[in-house]
């Protein structure tokens, strides 16, 4: 009797995590399951025509972006952490700025800048009195152009990971290197870099995931990859188009799974622990003269190219022309974006709270597994998730409309597939991991003994959550909501596929204008997205500055303790690092 009741109770306890995970993970599962479905020959056709090109382009893109981001990211991280040169403290956080610009905006900016009628080529022609055909100019609408634009937007992930890793290295390891006769260069390649490798690989994995998922930029550059192929095929009027799109999506899913597998393998074999507990200011080499100028220039270039030029360009264009719909429509699109993002982020935070707290209360392996599974969508490209949502929704819609037709004699068309519910659903699948990470990180900062104290003081679990957990989580919840909000504003492929036909967001507006070569008009929306995108970058740099022990209000304010605190952001807490990685 008691046993049965306990079994029932344990199922009830599993319900919130189970239902939420099923809800957010099912689009991914649908895609995975679509591999075996019949497409009436369409798949065979695809495989013989476009698939090789998709594979080639995706591989080229991934390799190019990986190499470029590692060079830019690790190089700049090494310079700003271990060398002193003019502008270092400013550049240290300015190097994060390109994170604020979605890569598709970079693509528009550089197209505008480098196209035949753009400022650069116009200037060349007028200066040297050339006309068309007199000179060779690199074509930005190419795989290499896409690599450049993606690398400029994505290198901050590697930079951040590498910088954190360098900062966390014990000064002893580096000093031993020096006493063993290694110069700065050798020290970098033989001590610092190998020690930082696991972190750099983690950063690089994020870059590659973004590259695989990249839609806006590559689509604009006419580079056909899996992500663009999914979008194109799903728009085709063939029968089985959706199934074929799902199968393409499944291919992408396999690539992502491969990537995650490689990363965890790489990390398992190389997890280094600091054997020393001594952290001091890292040794820094004071650079002088031409070397200092060179260092400043090298670190400034990614910021100028990845952030300065696009922003300046959009600002000039906006002043020149701007969105002609600015008055009425622009506000409507802006409002659509804000409402969508607000609803999605609040929902994502609520679901994250339910999942994380349920995991904390009943810390069983099954709960932990379910919670991890619910975050799977973050690694999945938006277009894949969109297809994974459309497949079951269309199926449900057909059933529903058939039923309504039978009962009432008219067909209502698509009810769920073309509704805002679908897109909100898509955002949950895609971004729940972001809010979940923050809530989990916040919860780990609440000592388990506080739970015990609350319970033994007579608080029911509900009261404990309400009066202990939630008040203590306020900061994490705000950060979680903000990040999901910004991610939703920037998101493009899932929004394009899932939004109802008569509904436009800022990102869609910018995409549509850019598609029609109306880049000047797109600048207004682009600027708005960049401004919103700056919020998490500011939050991130603030977190990096405040992550020293003792900087947090909850610690004893003893003067002695203050003095012991290392004067570096080197002690970035592990949970913070997880969040940072998610940014």
């Amino acid at each position, binding site marked *: 009797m008691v046993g049965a009741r306990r079994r029932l109770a344990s199922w009830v306890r599993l319900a919130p995590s189970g239902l939420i995970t099923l809800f957010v993970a099912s689009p991914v599962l649908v895609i995975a399951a679509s591999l075996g479905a019949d497409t009436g020959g369409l798949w065979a056709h695809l495989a013989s025509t476009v698939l090789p090109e998709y594979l080639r382009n995706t591989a080229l893109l991934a390799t190019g972006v990986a190499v470029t981001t590692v060079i830019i990211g690790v190089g700049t991280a090494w310079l700003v952490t271990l060398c002193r040169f003019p502008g270092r403290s400013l550049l240290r956080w300015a190097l994060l700025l390109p994170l604020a610009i979605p890569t598709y905006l970079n693509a528009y900016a550089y197209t505008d800048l480098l196209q035949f009628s753009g400022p650069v080529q116009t200037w060349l022609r007028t200066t040297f009195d050339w006309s068309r055909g007199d000179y060779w100019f690199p074509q930005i609408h190419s795989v290499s152009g896409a690599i450049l634009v993606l690398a400029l937007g994505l290198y901050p992930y590697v930079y951040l990971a590498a910088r954190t890793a360098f900062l966390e290295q014990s000064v002893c390891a580096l000093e031993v290197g020096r006493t063993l006769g290694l110069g700065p260069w050798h020290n970098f390649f033989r001590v610092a870099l190998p020690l930082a490798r696991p972190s750099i690989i983690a950063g690089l994995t994020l870059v590659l995931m973004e590259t695989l998922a990249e839609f806006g930029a590559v689509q604009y550059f006419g580079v056909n990859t899996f992500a663009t192929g999914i979008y194109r095929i799903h728009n085709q009027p063939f029968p089985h188009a959706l199934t074929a799109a799902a199968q393409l999506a499944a291919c992408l899913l396999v690539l992502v799974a491969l990537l995650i597998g490689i990363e965890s393998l790489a990390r398992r074999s190389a997890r280094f622990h600091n054997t020393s507990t001594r952290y001091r200011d890292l040794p820094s080499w004071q650079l002088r003269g031409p070397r200092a100028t060179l260092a400043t220039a090298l670190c400034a270039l990614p910021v100028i190219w990845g952030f300065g030029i696009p922003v300046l360009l959009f600002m000039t264009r906006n002043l020149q022309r701007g969105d002609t719909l600015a008055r009425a429509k622009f506000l409507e699109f802006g409002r659509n974006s804000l409402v969508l993002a607000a609803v999605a982020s609040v929902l994502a935070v609520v679901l994250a709270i339910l999942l994380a707290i349920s995991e904390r209360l009943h810390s069983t392996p099954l709960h932990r597994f379910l919670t991890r599974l619910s975050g799977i969508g973050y690694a999945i490209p938006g277009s894949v998730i969109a297809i994974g949502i459309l497949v079951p929704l269309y199926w449900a819609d057909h059933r529903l409309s058939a039923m309504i037709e039978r009962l009432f004699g008219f067909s209502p068309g698509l009810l769920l597939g073309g509704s805002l519910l679908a897109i909100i659903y898509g955002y949950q699948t895609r971004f729940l991991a972001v809010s979940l990470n923050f809530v989990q990180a916040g919860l780990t900062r609440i000592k388990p003994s506080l739970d*015990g104290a609350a319970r033994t*003081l007579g608080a029911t679990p509900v009261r404990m959550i309400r009066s202990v957990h939630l008040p203590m989580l306020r900061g994490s919840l705000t950060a979680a909501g903000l990040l999901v909000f910004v991610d939703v504003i920037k998101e493009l492929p899932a929004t394009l596929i899932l939004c109802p036909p008569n509904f436009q967001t800022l990102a869609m507006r910018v995409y549509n204008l850019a598609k029609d070569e109306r880049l000047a008009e797109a600048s207004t929306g682009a600027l708005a997205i960049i401004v919103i995108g700056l919020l998490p970058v500011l939050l991130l740099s603030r977190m990096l500055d405040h992550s020293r022990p003792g900087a947090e209000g909850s610690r004893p304010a003893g003067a002695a303790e203050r003095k012991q605190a290392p004067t570096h952001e080197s002690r970035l807490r592990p949970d913070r690092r997880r969040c940072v990685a998610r940014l």
Partner: protein
Amino acid sequence: MSQGSGLIVDDVSHVYDRTVAAQNVSLEVRPGEVHCLLGPSGSGKSTLLRVVAGLETLQSGRVEIAGREVAGPDTHLRPEQRSVGFVFQDYALFPHLNVHDNIAFGMPKTSRERKREQVGELLAKIDMAGFEATMPHTLSGGQQQRVALARALASHPAVMLLDEPFSGLDTQLRREVRHKTLELLHATQVATLMVTHDPQEALATADSISIIRGGRIVQTGSPEEVYLRSANRQIAEVFGRVNRLSRTVRKGLVAVPGSSVAVQALADGTAVEVLLRPESIELERHATAGAITAKIADISREGATLTVTLILEDGSRLEARDLARQDWKVGETVHLKVAPEAAMIQSLPSAE
């Protein structure tokens, strides 16, 4: 008080993280009594407290609080239904609540004014009147400990569980806080189960002590009992150094330096070990009746006491502790004597 009040732990066994935290543990704590679980760090003593509090689900056995079964084969009361107060090793004060709200957190429902009054009374008892609006992180370790104690007492629990309550405090502060804590606990007539790894602390605090090894209770008794009549050598050594002398029972007597101890239970010829605490050996400059002589081999000074290493005539070594009043010299011959009641006599297993 009725028989069933206080805390009864009956045959509890519990495995946590593949460590045996408790194996057939039974103990009883009466109201007003402080019972100490003494064992090495990481031996799962805290887990036993969590089982009693209901923070861990009981695996086997029975727990009774104030005459009511709170955990057993068919019962599992939630922690909030058990009437226990828990003082955690890290005190676990709610960092977002001030001292008043922390203490009032578990108080029975009553008017705001009444609560304020009660919090004020409790704060006065712990010498912290006027600290109501202070936030926990600005308090010292000792103050945090006292607030945690007051908070646990505020809900009038039948059982108090203290997990290494003084380990975070420095030596000087520890003595004061311990004194204050005991005063408060005795005044409230609550049954207290306290966990510690520090034998001196257990001796200083407890009314009774259970010594726990590998999840089993190996001896329970008053501080005097476990210290002066330890059940075996391992237990005796928990509380400090002991001298070991090998002897054989002759005519119902065991010889100890300067006298002999009568043993009824052991047959003649049984090999025994005599355990002597260093402070139970008395050193004299002049010969007295029954004293034997020894030579001082070494002296080490530890503030108020001296540890003197002695070599007996038969060549065996003893350590004696003496107050640093006498001016002993290495090489000097002294006379020593042992009070027969201070000798712990253990029969050795015949296998050895």
